């Protein structure tokens, strides 16, 4: 080993505390990057491979009923590659052990062979036999939720008749990577099932011989999807087409895509902060090292080492730290990615084992880390080697102290000696003080970001289910029923309150923009389901005109006062116009609301309703559900709150895991920054402090001078960190916004308190470590060495 390499290793050992701190910060930054990126790529490639292999379609349309030859005609649309016509029906299930009724979507499956599109992936059991009545293949989520195995049965009300369905197989489908019902924001795997049944059996059960009511199409690469959608709509309009949609509006696809988009954001923002802080730390630590080694650098130059060789020497030193950090970061990130991917696998069901490490991600991560580190280092090295060796060998000119501003103002008389020294130090090198403060502030900010997700989700749940949707269950009818039907329900024992609503699927169009949504007619008394702004204020529903979700208004590029075209997608498929009279700035969805009487008027129908929201007396749930199950018009009961609670239980667990990563890493960063600052301060001012010891200062007094500065900067950094953290959260909440969700910028006091506490804790811990250094200051050496 060459002498210079030995020097590097010994220098590294000498600064091991700082080296470990820096490497840890790098490891955390890289781990977040590698973890998020590899999760992202694992999910993306799993999804794409799944779509490809199982031929996930591009365009979807439901319709009332069309004869089979119509499907052939869809093939003639330019750009269409494959067409699959199906029968899809909703049925009510009576699941053993479940008091409330569940709903199921029955999808027809070819009697022989594979469907041309949306092939299912059989996990266990077999395909249903087209010659046997009632055999179905069930989607895994529902089956798992209830512990169904092939051979188990469940009762269903199909077309008004009770039939026993036998589950013969359990499968996955590219159409249902997540099983979310239309109009819902959360999957409810307990009460929502998807079954595939042979076409022949479906035709018989629903009197659909020679006809279909659902069409899926795939298009050739490069085809104009919007044009295909238009033509499908035109083709299916005479058959009660409900409006074709592309993948972008397909619920499962959109949910997964939104998640990936959010993951993309999260794989960029926090790692950038972490790596930025790491680069900053490297820079500070190296600058200090170079200052301390000023004379050594000069001697090396005097012996004939070139600036390049010296630069390489110091860059390698840093390179070793980065390499160690990167190695740990890659391992940690891979582990984290695996853990996160497993977590996603609970919500998004893919047929293949998901996680794989993309070496390009590791490479990109390491390259990023090295460049972040080297940029910081090179500047410091360059300025160090540029000085003439003779100049470098002379001690630096004495630092230029001036009375601080506070002293000039004359306030110093009230300050004792130690604070005065701290103050002068800070005013002498404000840039350094600012950098240290900024470093600690960022650590504080990261802690806030780490807890932001939880605060936001807690708030959303409270808002959505504490303020906005206060019903215990929502009931949907098979078809619109006269408004008076509600009065019979009002008498069901246990129902405390009931509010009816009218909901129609509609496409809302404004100039060239359009969007399919549910148009909801709400009653005048809105206590179970309230229309609220994000600030919790109740939004007025005028007797006429539409109130749109602000997100929908943005999609349609319209403002209050504009008139929109409403194309109703059921029944007579009437087309009407109505003015937009208000917007509701809500957190989720893209709904449109009207007064129920105005909606009935608009549709020129008698007072009819589509469903009702109910609140149930505590303890009466079971009897109410039993009663509802036997009410013929009731198609399904959704217990959104219970569904959400179940969902949140598992979600919270995973959220906790994510938080654990973030918060642990943020703690590492906080300690890393503070410890490093303290170490740097100690080595910079070691002489001065030792001299103070020599002239009679106690260890405590000397510590006060050094650590007091750190305490002061920490005190400054905490509010700054709050501000930066708030800004970052604001940025993240905007970046994470999707059409389905808007993430509220909510930060609870405990989040701030926690961040401050960790930073203070890190300061105390670092102080204790550095205090040991102060105790060991070599007073004799100071007096002997040259000034």
């Amino acid at each position: 080993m060459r002498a210079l390499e030995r020097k590097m290793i010994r220098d590294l050992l000498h600064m091991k505390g700082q080296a470990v701190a820096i490497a840890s910060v790098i490891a955390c930054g890289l781990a977040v990057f590698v973890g998020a990126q590899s999760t992202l790529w694992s999910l993306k490639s799993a999804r794409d491979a799944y779509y490809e292999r199982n031929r996930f379609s591009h365009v979807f349309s439901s319709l009332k009923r069309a004869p089979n030859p119509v499907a052939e005609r869809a093939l003639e649309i330019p750009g269409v590659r494959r067409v699959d016509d199906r029968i899809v029906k909703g049925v009510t299930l009576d699941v053993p052990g479940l008091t409330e009724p569940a709903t199921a979507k029955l999808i027809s499956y070819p009697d022989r062979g594979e469907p041309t599109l949306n092939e299912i992936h059989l996990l266990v059991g077999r395909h249903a036999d087209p010659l046997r009545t009632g055999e179905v293949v069930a989607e895994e989520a529902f089956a798992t939720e209830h512990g169904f195995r092939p051979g188990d049965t469940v009762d269903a009300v199909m077309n008004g008749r009770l039939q026993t369905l036998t589950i013969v197989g359990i499968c996955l489908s590219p159409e249902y990577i997540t099983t979310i019902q239309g109009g819902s924001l959360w999957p409810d795997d307990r009460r929502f099932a998807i079954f595939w049944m042979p076409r022949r059996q479906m035709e018989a059960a629903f009197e659909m011989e020679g006809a279909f009511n659902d069409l899926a199409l795939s298009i050739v690469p490069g085809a104009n999807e919007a044009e295909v959608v238009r033509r499908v709509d035109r083709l299916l309009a005479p058959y009660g087409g409900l409006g074709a949609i592309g993948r972008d509006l397909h619920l499962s696809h959109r949910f997964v895509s939104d998640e990936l988009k959010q993951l993309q954001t999260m794989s960029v923002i926090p790692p950038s902060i972490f790596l930025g802080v790491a680069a900053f730390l490297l820079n500070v630590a190296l600058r200090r090292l170079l200052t301390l080694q000023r004379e050594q650098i000069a001697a090396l130059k005097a012996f004939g080492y070139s600036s390049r060789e010296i630069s390489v020497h110091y860059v390698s030193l840093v390179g070793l730290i980065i390499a160690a950090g990167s190695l740990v970061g890659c391992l940690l990130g891979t582990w984290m990615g695996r853990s996160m991917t497993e977590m996603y696998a609970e919500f998004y069901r893919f047929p293949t084992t998901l996680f794989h490490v993309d070496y390009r991600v590791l490479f990109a991560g390491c390259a990023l880390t090295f460049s972040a580190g080297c940029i910081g280092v090179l500047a410091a090295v360059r300025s160090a080697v540029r000085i003439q060796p003779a100049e470098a060998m002379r001690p630096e000119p004495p630092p230029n102290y001036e009375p601080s501003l506070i002293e000039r103002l004359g306030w110093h008389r009230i300050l004792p000696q130690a604070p005065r020294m701290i103050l002068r130090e800070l005013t002498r090198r404000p840039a350094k003080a600012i950098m240290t403060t900024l470093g600690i502030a960022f650590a504080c900010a990261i802690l806030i970001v780490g807890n932001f997700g939880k605060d936001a989700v807690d708030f959303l749940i409270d808002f959505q289910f504490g303020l906005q949707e206060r019903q215990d269950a929502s009931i949907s009818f098979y078809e619109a029923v006269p408004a008076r039907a509600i009065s019979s329900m009002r008498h069901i024992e246990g129902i405390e309150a009931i509010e009816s609503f009218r909901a129609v699927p509609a496409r809302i169009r404004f100039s060239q923009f359009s969007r399919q949504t549910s148009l909801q007619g709400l009653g005048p008394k809105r206590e179970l389901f309230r229309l609220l702004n994000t600030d919790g204020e109740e939004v007025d529903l005028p007797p006429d005109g539409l109130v749109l979700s602000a997100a929908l208004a943005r999609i349609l590029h319209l403002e209050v006062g504009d008139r929109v075209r409403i194309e109703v997608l059921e029944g007579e498929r009437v087309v009407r116009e109505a003015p937009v009279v208000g917007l509701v700035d809500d957190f989720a969805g893209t709904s449109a609301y009207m007064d129920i009487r105005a909606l009935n008027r608009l549709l020129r129908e008698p007072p009819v309703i589509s469903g009702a929201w109910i609140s149930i007396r505590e303890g009466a749930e079971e009897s109410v559900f039993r009663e509802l199950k036997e009410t013929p018009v009731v198609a399904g009961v959704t217990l959104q709150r219970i569904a959400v609670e179940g969902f949140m239980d598992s979600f919270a667990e995973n959220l906790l895991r994510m938080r654990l990563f973030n918060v642990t890493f943020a703690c590492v960063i906080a300690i890393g920054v503070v410890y490093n600052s303290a170490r740097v301060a100690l080595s910079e001012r070691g002489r001065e402090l030792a001299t103070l010891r020599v002239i009679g200062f106690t260890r405590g007094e000397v510590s006060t001078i050094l650590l007091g500065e750190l305490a002061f900067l920490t005190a400054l950094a905490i509010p700054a960190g709050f501000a930066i953290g708030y800004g970052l959260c604001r940025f993240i909440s905007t970046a994470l916004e999707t059409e389905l969700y808007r993430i509220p910028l909510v930060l609870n006091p405990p989040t701030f308190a926690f961040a401050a506490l960790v930073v203070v804790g890190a300061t105390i811990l670092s102080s204790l470590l550095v205090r040991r250094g102060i105790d060991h200051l070599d007073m004799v050496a100071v007096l002997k060495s040259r000034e």
Partner: protein
Amino acid sequence: MDSPPEIQAVYEAHDLTKVYHMGEVSVHALRGVDIHLYEKELIVLLGHSGSGKSTLLNILGGLDIPSSGEVFYRGNRMSDFSESELTRYRREHVGFVFQFYNLIPSLTARENVALVTEIANDPMKPEDALALVDLDERMDHFPSQMSGGEQQRVAIARAIAKQPDVLLCDEPTGALDLETGIMVLEAIDNVNRELGTTTAVITHNSVISDMAHRVIRLRDGQIESIVENEEVKPADQLNW
């Protein structure tokens, strides 16, 4: 200044000036210095602190650049040297000894010498160089484990290990007691006599000037006098 015609000048300097800006103060370290250094001679640069002698030595060694004036090393104008030529010049031709030794604290004696021999053209073995200064017993000690005199002898071993053309010593005994100072001067004297290395020694101690061929006195950045010694004393016979 006259010189014997058969001896060539290693260094020729004309009208050197150097101004430092230290903080808010400007220091005129050299104010027009002309000097020649000849092959195989040992000169002593004498002067009080602040007389400019270190500056002159640093400029000759390529550690610093003059504010004005010219220096020739064996006929080559040093101001024409590029950064890499200057590095090569220091690497191949010059050995330095500093008042505060400037050893790398994280390296042992042997490794400190190896630091230089590893990049030199025709170096001695570090062990041989350390033997020349009587340190073969303490080769694996770190600087912090050695006395000042020992550290300075390591520095001399380090300087001569590359077999330089010139040896430049800046107050080599400045931080040492008398006895160790003599040992260090003996080492320098040996190198000059046995290897014929052109040597310049800076000191403010006029006793040391007895071991030089020529003594150059500096004062306030100017040459006050140049005296050729009739009799050159070996280091161990200096009158302290």
